[in-house]
């Protein structure tokens, strides 16, 4: 399928906050509580439509544990959007946001759109971080904020699509040079990931 743009996203945040589940909910529309923990990185992709334009999201789901930070950093390059995820039932995952943000600022493109996600909103009875705290943090750091539930699919579409909308607005305003792939955007009419194999003769 052809698309106008390809956006690279990266999902970051502490281990066990539900990064892989968010991705699966978004790409496959299902919640799978039992899946292998992520080592290194996993991928997902989905086509969305913004203002009538087809946009392909290529989403990188990273491992959360600190010991993998050095490798995770190598994935930031070329990301147009990031979902920074914490678990509203585990306060420490919220407290680690600053260090994640620092990593992102340091290793990603400054124009990268970051969406702050408070996940597991369905577990409100075990809530350890209030919505206001999340909003406050987002406001202080210039992020967009949403609380989601990968289990019930609450706000999952919005999280990914609003991020794309923000990126698209940046393109429209000329903040991105679309021809420069280090912004994580590829303007394309064909496949971006695997270029069609050349079928050529011996010239």
């Amino acid at each position, binding site marked *: 399928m052809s698309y106008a743009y390809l956006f*690279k996203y990266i999902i970051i945040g502490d*281990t*066990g906050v539900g990064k892989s589940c968010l991705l699966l909910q978004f790409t496959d529309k299902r919640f799978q509580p*039992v*899946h*292998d*923990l992520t*080592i*290194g*990185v*996993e*991928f997902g992709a989905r086509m969305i439509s913004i203002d009538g334009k087809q946009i392909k999201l290529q989403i990188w789901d990273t*491992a959360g*544990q*600190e*010991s*993998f930070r*050095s*490798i995770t950093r*190598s*994935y930031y*390059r*070329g990301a147009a959007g990031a979902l920074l995820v914490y678990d509203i039932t585990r306060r*420490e995952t919220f407290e680690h946001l600053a260090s994640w943000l620092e990593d992102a600022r340091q290793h990603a493109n400054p124009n990268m759109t970051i969406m702050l996600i408070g996940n597991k909103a369905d577990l409100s009875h075990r809530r350890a971080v209030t919505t206001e705290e999340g909003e406050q943090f987002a406001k202080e750091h210039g992020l967009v904020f949403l609380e989601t539930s990968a289990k019930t699919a609450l706000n999952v579409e919005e999280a990914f699509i609003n991020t794309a909308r923000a990126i698209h607005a940046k393109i429209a305003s000329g903040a991105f040079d679309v021809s420069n*792939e280090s912004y994580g955007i590829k303007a394309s009419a064909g496949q971006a*990931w*695997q*270029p069609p*194999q*050349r*079928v*050529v*003769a*011996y*010239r």
Partner: protein
Amino acid sequence: MEGPVLREGMLCTEQEALPGGLSREGSMCERPQIGLALGAALRDDWVGGRGIGGPPSFPLHETTFEGREEIGDPEAPPAELEDEYEGVCAGGGSSEEYSDVEDAGSQHTEVVYVKEGVCMFPSPKQRIMGRLSLIKQYRCLFLCWLPYAAGASPLEDCSSTANGGSSNGAAAAAAEAHGGGVESAKDRTMYAVHPVPLSDVRAISKHTPPLGQHRVTVTLASGVSLPSLHFQTGGVKAFLSCLRQHAPLVRSADDPNTWLVNDTGDPLQRSLCSLELTDVLIGPLAAGRWQVAEGEAGLRAQLGDLIDRFQQLTQTAKDTASSLFAGSVLLGTAGAPEAGPGGTSGAASNGAAGAAAEGGLGLEERRRSSLEASTSLGVFELIEGSAAEAAGSSPAWTRARPPPLTLAELNTFFDAEGRLANPAAFRQRVHDGGVEPEARPEAWKLLLGVHAPGATRAERAAAAAERRRRYQAMRAQWRGMDGEQMAHCSKWRERCTRIDKDVRRTDRSHRFYARERGQAGTMLRNILLSYERFNQDLGYVQGMSDLASPLLYVMRGAVPTAGQLSNEEALGVEAEAFWAFKALMDRLEANFSSDSRAMHAQLLALRSLVQLLDPPLYAHLEARECLSFFYCYRWLLIWMKREFPFEEVLRLWEALWAGVPGLHLYLCLAVLEHHRRQILSSDWAFDDMLRFCVELSGKLKLEPLLRDAELLASYAGPVGRDIVAAALAASSI
């Protein structure tokens, strides 16, 4: 004039023919041995491998290009060229040449199929006639189509007649229009299909319309389709049936007119071909291409040594190749200028055979050993030498895979007192054949060193009891923590939470771990928590559960009880799994250290190995900023645990433990080499490469990879051993 012209004809230039088509790189120019023999087998209008000097063939690029320039000169009168070709052809009869070559010593090269007058139509108005042939060298089949030299075609006249005079008229008109012959030598040779190993071919399609010409399209593994080959006088069926006799063809499920070439067949053959080992060997031999990246002091220090070795290799390769392909080599060098090919080849090959015998090269012996080595004769001999030296045993490709080791057979490895009599033989046996599930608990404990080497049966039993006691005490330490104590141990609590979470996310798709909070999960948790206590400096890091899970599964197999284990049984299994895990972590602990030093050391080693063994791939990755090898991170961290199905991981690990040090690095390398063509034919940036590697999970074929990993390890020889040793030293804590 003659020399360059002929060279042009024989070698053509890959670079010219396929601009940027890296996938083709090395198919001819980097396989001098093959090229030599095939060149000899094919010579006819092209007159042998006259243009081909001795191996290595790199200097020939220059002459080739010079030749091209001359040929490509639009001012050059075509008539003169034709005369040259004609003269040559007059000297060399076509059919006798083959037997001549066989006599000359390339008895393993056989032309199994020839079809004259097969055409290509590069454009509707342009037709190039040529000869299609299948050549078998050892067990590798090559497909080849070479255009006739203008005026040299045995069928030229008759086919021209068949097509009527109009085509000649059209050609002449076009020639006038373009100010040059449509079928100029340059155009003809540009389309030549130089011997392509069948392993490079993905599919062959036939088009046999009721009206019109029958034709065949060849699609290479890289996805490139060659221009259709038109069988003007029919014979597509015969071609395919001949092909089928020599290579396994599988009719495509999607298209009954398409045959997949490399779908089945001798996996060894295929994997050897797919590895392009000749390519790999020749790469570093080209001294000019061996470059050490700036600022890499360690590598730089090895450089002098390397070059020495390469020079030795080059010399040996020359010796070997020249003895094996004596006829063609001499033809290519000495015989070129003066005599016609018929006379020269006979004399030269006799001389060569004599020289080889005199030189005491043990030609026959070499040939015998090379029989198993498929296409790259000289290469494999070198490997064999170093492999025998390295492993002290015969290399993998000379052995058929034995069946897995049974418990009964395992017991034969022990002496009367139960000592492992010959640990090396045991390891070799495990490495080659793997282990039956029933024998795994004991075999793994031997491999991992849980059982002390040289211990008797009684000593092992005593040690097992002691291990059990120690484990139980360790487990009791954390189990006995009371609430208040826990309240003061936030780090421990955090790690408990993490382990709990991760155990619930480890191999849950495997039946053994399927049950939420089942006994297996609880045991895995106990092992990981106990290890956390045992090695608090390191603590728990993600990936450890992946390593512990197969160990527990295997140790559980030692207890025949079906269903739930009793507490005592569970303790016994847990204890053995814990100590096996501890032994494995003794080797892999550094992978999990927070500074990632060991991981970086291994990634660097991988990089050095690629640089050593496959410079073209290295250059390709370098140009795309892919030299961090981060895409191999997961492979190295948990030894490919996520790349294969659970049961195959068991076979993989035991093979790696029983193999040479650093075999896991070579396995990563083998994975890359197996996808080399795909990588080289793509312009992937780091992201694409990473995604490609991640998505290989579950698609890899274990046995060919294991075999080729060992092959690569042998091939890397002492230099590779040094690289691996340096990485492992940096990895040790």
